[in-house]
């Protein structure tokens, strides 16, 4: 039961307290680029969460059974990125075959996920924090959920902003960043939520 509580706390902390985008600064490119509409943002979030969970599992296995077992730490970055690129490729092919509808909705976002620094960041944080296999998968899932939460919130705000009067120079990236800053401040309120 103790371990279950730990895992649950890990999940909550990854989604809210140490949110990947607003606290760890991972996944900023898609956060700025794909947050114009709630629907698109949600699809991106979904696809990313799926890839993140699988990546967490796959990289944990590779790190434990190959890199550490054979003492090849210097191949970590090269092997992780190969895993991520391959996973994204397989996920894309899998979705294309099993659900053409879903594929159409997610389509262009999938290849972009390879360069999402949140995925590689996630893969690197797992050995750094020494998580068990289950903890890693929960961590990956939580990271995806937190990512989706932030990007959907941002999209909601930006949709409303379309009706506002933003000064010319601030249109687009600047105002998005400022909003992100305010969101980050709001999320700061979550720290201390769980006294670990």
């Amino acid at each position: 039961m103790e371990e279950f509580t730990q895992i649950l706390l890990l999940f909550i902390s990854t989604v809210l307290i140490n949110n990947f985008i607003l606290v760890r600064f991972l996944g900023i490119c898609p956060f700025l680029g794909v947050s114009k509409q709630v629907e698109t943002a949600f699809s991106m979030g979904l696809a990313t969460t799926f890839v993140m969970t699988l990546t967490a599992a796959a990289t944990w296995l590779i790190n434990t059974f190959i890199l550490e077992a054979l003492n090849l730490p210097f191949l970590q970055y090269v092997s992780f990125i190969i895993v991520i690129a391959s996973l994204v490729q397989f996920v894309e092919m899998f979705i294309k075959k099993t659900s053409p509808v879903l594929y159409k909705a997610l389509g262009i976002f999938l290849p972009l996920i390879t360069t999402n620094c949140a995925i590689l960041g996630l893969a690197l944080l797992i050995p750094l924090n020494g998580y068990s296999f289950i903890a890693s998968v929960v961590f990956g899932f939580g990271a995806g959920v937190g990512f989706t939460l932030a990007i959907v919130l941002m999209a909601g705000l930006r949709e409303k902003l379309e009706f506002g009067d933003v000064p010319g120079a601030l249109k687009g990236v600047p105002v998005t960043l400022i909003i992100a800053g305010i969101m980050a401040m709001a999320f700061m309120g979550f720290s201390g939520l769980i006294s670990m």
Partner: protein
Amino acid sequence: MEKNSKKAMIITLATIGIISALLLTFVYEWTTPYIQANQAKKQKQAINEVLPKVEKIKEVEKNGSVFYEGYDASGNQVGVAFISSGGGYNGVIKIMIGVDLKSNEIYKISILNHQETPGLGARITGKKFKSNFKNKPFGDYTVVKTPPSKETQVQAIAGATISSRSVTKIIEDALGKINSAYGGGN
């Protein structure tokens, strides 16, 4: 061989992969001694900060934990250093504690790693807060908000009670482990 044929693709990727692995092996062999020296130096510095006048450090394992025994130039044991971690306000706090087993006192503590809020909880690394634990006798500590009137009291950082309490608890846990390993007094 046609440029985009399957054979060409596999050969290209395989070649790049092999050259990459070879180059990185060299980089690894070249830098590893330096990296290890850096880590050893960092650890020695950390231990020297919490144990005075230590010339030699002996790493021992007791009850499943690692303790660093410090000896001075004449070979006398100065004290023991121990690394303890625990949850803080914003993440894990890692503390190095140096104790004197003869007088059952903490020499000094050093915060190795933390993620506390800058300006608030982060002030646990400051001189003022750490002085709470300088030459402090072992005991059950209580965190108070006013200047301590008893030796077992620790003054919290204004606005960072949780961080202050976390550090105190981590240190108490460490003392417990040190005492059970070295069979000391309290």
